[in-house]
């Protein structure tokens, strides 16, 4: 409450009746690290502070990846266009050439004319050296990509300086996204042969000021891990990202501006240009004080909703009584998602009924083709659980709450912004389903187990390391409690969160995102771990290493295996995905809720043309491939 008071104090103070007066930019201003402000794009770090700011060795797990390394300094064989979900060649000259019908042999043709920042040309020798290094040092290198690639690649050979051939262990329709970039990162970080071949201890090598392939080099950094400063290469046109055009900012300064309240104040004062996951309350306060502060969209839900993952509820489908589809459906129908979204996100969210986020890429591939099926979906008792008017209902509820109609979407934008539909909030139907499996409400108003004993549902949610999910989690607990489920919402730390996710004995239900991550149409990338060998007994303390939704369904296992051996560009591949989704929903193995809202406000005092809903040339994240495109498209404001 005190924080809300302080934010309203910030929002209210000094705002004249005619509208807020923005702090004015200062011509000739310099940043605190000595670069001209007008030439410097300043970004809040994604990871806050790092304890290893000097580690730029991409072969080790703890390197400082989150503050420009992959977006500014590195290049990959194939990058991902985040607006379309399609791979495009970056270090390669073209997409991989498939050499056999089994999809196991590939030719990689490199783009000539790409140079490392120290003037040495990038060639196939660097790629071969990196593969050799991965294979020869797999017991020392802790970068997660090392086991990925060494279990994926069977053999490789150089053809000439710009060509090499790779054979994979299994059919590899995802070759471009495994050897290149899938959403935000790549398992295959190519290192400069002429630098790394001289290193004796690769694990201890810091690579402090790395020789880069990207358009920037590291100019300076804070040994305390609060900031990194990058400078554009004079020969940026020989870098990996040259085809995108000249990056407009001469300097990119990543800095941790502190906790959210301090960051909000700094944002209002034009101290930086792009934030990372600011809460809706703080964004409202900043917008009230500075008209140059903008959200992704001008109307609800304001923020970009195209993240690769969605928030949902993992259910331990193996554990009674959650092993009954009726109970799982009852939980879904007892969850008033509109209330949850309004309480936890001020209504700024987009619902998604399928077990994946509803994005510009997945909607035409999966969501739209399945609408007719969802509308007709019927539970065994004849009940139709789908509400295709979810978006329109949200508009009505927000209007009732007094939201200015000008701030709400209209027409097609209603489903575009709030989603195509979600499950009905119907506790009465939920009660019928519970009763059908012998679970009735006791004298205290809460459901009991079939033998009449009390039942407490433990809902695991993140503690304050993920405040948005924490708030969503408490709202879910509230919604279920009102519907008659006795819920114990237990907050856990980051490390415990992963342990609960992977341990049957510890898990009943938890708010999570890992099951739903699908960015391009390759659903297999995430769901390939859904197989029988990853299941453990319901109360096992042995950790699972996949199949986090605990799906035990032979049809789904077979379909995923079948899809894994399909050409992903063929319609059959998408149809297989749709079949899997139908089976998942029919059994309600996993309750998906909403796309992860990426609340990334920009301050357009010094730079404009950031990606916005009406100009969505990339997703707006500064820690994904998209930032390469953003840097080439932003424009400086003439002071």
């Amino acid at each position: 409450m005190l924080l809300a008071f302080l934010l309203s104090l910030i929002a209210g103070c000094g705002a004249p009746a005619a509208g807020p007066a923005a702090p004015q930019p200062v011509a000739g201003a310099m940043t605190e690290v000595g670069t001209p402000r007008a030439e410097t794009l300043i970004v809040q770090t994604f990871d806050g502070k790092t304890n290893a700011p000097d580690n730029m060795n991409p072969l080790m797990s703890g390197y400082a990846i989150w503050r420009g390394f992959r977006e500014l300094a590195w290049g990959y064989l194939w990058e991902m266009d985040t607006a379309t979900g399609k791979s495009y060649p970056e270090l390669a000259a073209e997409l991989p050439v498939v050499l056999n019908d089994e999809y196991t042999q590939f030719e990689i043709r490199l783009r000539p004319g790409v140079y490392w920042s120290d003037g040495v040309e990038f060639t196939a020798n660097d790629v071969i050296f990196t593969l050799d290094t991965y294979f020869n040092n797999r017991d020392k290198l802790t970068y997660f990509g090392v086991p990925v690639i060494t279990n994926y690649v069977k053999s490789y050979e150089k053809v000439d300086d710009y060509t090499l051939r790779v054979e994979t262990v299994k059919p590899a329709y995802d070759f471009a996204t495994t050897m290149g970039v899938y959403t935000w990162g790549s398992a295959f970080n190519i290192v400069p042969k002429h630098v790394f071949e001289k290193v004796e201890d690769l694990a201890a090598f810091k690579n402090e000021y790395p020789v880069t392939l990207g358009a920037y080099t590291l100019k300076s950094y804070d040994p305390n891990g609060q900031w990194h400063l990058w400078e554009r290469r004079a020969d940026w046109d020989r870098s990996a990202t040259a085809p995108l055009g000249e990056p407009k900012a001469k300097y990119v300064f990543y800095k941790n501006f502190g906790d959210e309240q301090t960051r909000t104040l700094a944002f209002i004062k034009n101290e930086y240009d792009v934030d990372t996951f600011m809460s809706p309350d703080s964004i409202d306060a900043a917008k009230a004080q500075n008209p140059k502060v903008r959200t992704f969209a001008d109307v609800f839900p304001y923020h970009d909703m195209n993240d690769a993952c969605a928030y949902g509820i993992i259910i331990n489908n193996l554990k009674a009584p959650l092993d009954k589809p009726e109970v799982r459906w009852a939980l879904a129908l007892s969850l008033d998602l509109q209330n949850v979204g309004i309480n936890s996100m001020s209504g700024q969210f987009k619902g998604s009924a399928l077990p994946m986020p509803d994005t510009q890429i997945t909607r035409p591939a999966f969501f739209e083709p399945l609408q007719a099926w969802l509308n007709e979906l019927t539970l065994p008792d004849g009940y139709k659980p789908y509400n295709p008017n979810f978006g329109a209902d949200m508009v009505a509820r927000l209007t009732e709450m007094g939201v200015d109609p000008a701030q709400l979407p209209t027409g097609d934008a209603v489903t575009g912004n709030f989603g195509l539909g979600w499950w009905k909030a119907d506790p009465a139907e939920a009660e019928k389903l519970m009763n059908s499996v012998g679970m009735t409400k006791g004298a205290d108003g809460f459901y009991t187990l079939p033998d009449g004993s009390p039942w407490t549902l433990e809902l695991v949610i993140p503690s304050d390391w993920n405040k948005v999910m924490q708030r969503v989690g408490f709202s879910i607990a509230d919604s279920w409690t009102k519907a008659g489920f006795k819920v114990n919402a237990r907050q856990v730390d980051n490390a415990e969160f992963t342990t609960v996710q992977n341990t049957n004995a510890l898990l009943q239900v938890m708010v999570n995102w890992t099951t739903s991550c699908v960015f391009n149409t390759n659903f297999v990338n995430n769901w390939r771990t859904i197989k029988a060998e990853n299941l453990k007994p319901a109360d096992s303390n042995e950790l699972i290493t996949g199949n986090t939704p605990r799906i035990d369904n032979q049809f789904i296992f077979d379909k995923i295996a079948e899809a894994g051996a399909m050409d992903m560009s063929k319609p059959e591949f998408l149809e297989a995905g749709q079949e899997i989704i139908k089976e998942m929903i029919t059994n309600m193995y996993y309750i998906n809720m909403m796309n992860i809202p990426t609340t990334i406000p920009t301050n357009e005092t010094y730079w404009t043309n950031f990606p916005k809903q009406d100009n969505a040339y990339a997703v707006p994240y500064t820690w994904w491939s998209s930032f390469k495109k953003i840097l080439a498209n932003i424009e400086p404001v003439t002071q």
Partner: protein
Amino acid sequence: MKLAQYVVQRFIGYLLVLFIGITITFFLPRLMPGDPINNYISQVQARAGQSLSAEATQQLRDSLAELYGLQGDIFTQYRNYLARVVRLDFGPSFTYYPEPVSNILLDAMPWTAGLLITTTLLSWLIGNSIGLIAGYFNKRRWATILEVVGIILYPIPYYILALVVILLLAYWIALFPLSPTFLPGPMTWNKAVSIIYNSFLPALTLILAGFGWNVLAMKALAVATKEDAYVQFARLKGTTDRTRMTNYVFRNAMLPQITALVLSLGFIFNGAIQTEVIFSYPGIGMTMRAAAGAGDYNLLYGAIILTIFSVATAALILDLIYPLFDPRIRLGG
């Protein structure tokens, strides 16, 4: 002889406390849910589900256990751990592997120590001085005003106090930066000035936060002490107010305050998490918090052992210097 016995007893107690603390530190994180190897495997599995067989997963698990120093049964690990701690080697950080924990702590320590030692001492000095004056002259109006300042500051939650100071001195009147920017490079005069300038607001908030308690505690002690017979006797002897306040009241009232000061100094290696978060100030607090969250045992051990060591050492120093301030202990009475 009595003094030597006193010192030896205290020193044995000190070593015992260290041993028990270090042992608990080893076992406690292992009882915590979360495991760095499993976290890593999960991350890899999410990307390599198609290609990572059960054998490959086990191979990866074994290799990580060796790299992280987690191979062998728990007693083997404990023995290795004790041997390493003696050498101040806490192993590598799991999160930032292969960065040695000692490097991470050594980088953070000067910032934490510099900020917290300075602010703890200043807060103690200013607070106790004001408390003494307010207590000694407790009938005067200005003394009441000083006490009110202490009463107002003491209960304000640190977070709110920090935000108000930021709003006043960095947002509305932009005298100081909203968040510090410490420049790299060797220490020069300019760099030292820049560090002081950038650290001013965090320091001010810590002084204000600690100051109220010192005012109130010293004022209460001074009011009680000044009525003691030896102070009245000194007054009748014709000593000045200043002499009685400093030589009679303060010297006797400061004993519990010194205990509090030394123990506060012992706790400084816990860091000041809120200060570090609000001001994005470097230090040990956030490092420790992040290590606990991520299951980074080694880093957590290192940070906690540092705290155990500093608190136990502070207590030892207190035991050793107390006879200097309190003749009753010196004389065994």
